């Protein structure tokens, strides 16, 4: 059973576009939802996290969680070439040393 599903892309958008990245999941016990950004041959870097359902905004980034649909999204407004990377969603059941379940990652290229 695949815990987390994510469209691998690749996704290519012009600079300034709004980008929508999505993941679905099957485990209703997930409560923490994270988005990581990974540049080529680097480790994942935490962008944002949300707990349970709802929206969270940080600058140009907005994370949404819909637990009823088991669906999470990351929106990037006014996308920049520096946003070009692979975006990974990750989820966990709890806080204490729990493993994170990652999606496959979506490769994003923002064209100047």
């Amino acid at each position, binding site marked *: 059973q695949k815990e987390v599903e994510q469209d691998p892309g690749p996704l290519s958008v012009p600079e300034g576009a709004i980008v929508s990245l999505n993941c679905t999941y099957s485990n209703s016990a997930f409560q*923490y939802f*994270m988005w990581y950004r990974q540049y080529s*041959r680097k*480790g994942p870097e935490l962008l944002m*996290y949300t707990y349970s359902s709802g929206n969270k905004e940080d600058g140009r980034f907005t994370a949404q969680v819909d637990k009823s649909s088991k669906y999470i999204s990351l929106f990037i407004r006014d996308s920049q070439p520096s946003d070009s990377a692979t975006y990974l969603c990750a989820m966990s059941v709890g806080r*204490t*040393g729990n493993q*994170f379940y*990652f999606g496959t*990652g979506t490769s994003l290229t923002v064209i100047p």
Partner: protein
Amino acid sequence: EPEVTQTPSHQVTQMGQEVILRCVPISNHLYFYWYRQILGQKVEFLVSFYNNEISEKSEIFDDQFSVERPDGSNFTLKIRSTKLEDSAMYFCASSTNTGVLREQYFGPGTRLTVT
């Protein structure tokens, strides 16, 4: 800004050999993790470690794997007898003991190539 460091950046080994991958977590972090990412595939959890013992491990983390915190700063992953399918990027991560979410901070990874 404090960061997780890993050495070596690239390790080439022959099948059947033992390898030790090394990590220096962020100094005030108490939880430590190893993940691997086979080329083109998702990041997969291997093991988490807290208070000098394994707190959780995945089915990937079989008897050929072991982890150790030999001193106050290093955290190691040992693969006893490497197989071709162990070729992957291995990421170390660490997290604090406080906060709403114990965010895991990842190191840059060690690329392991088994020939």
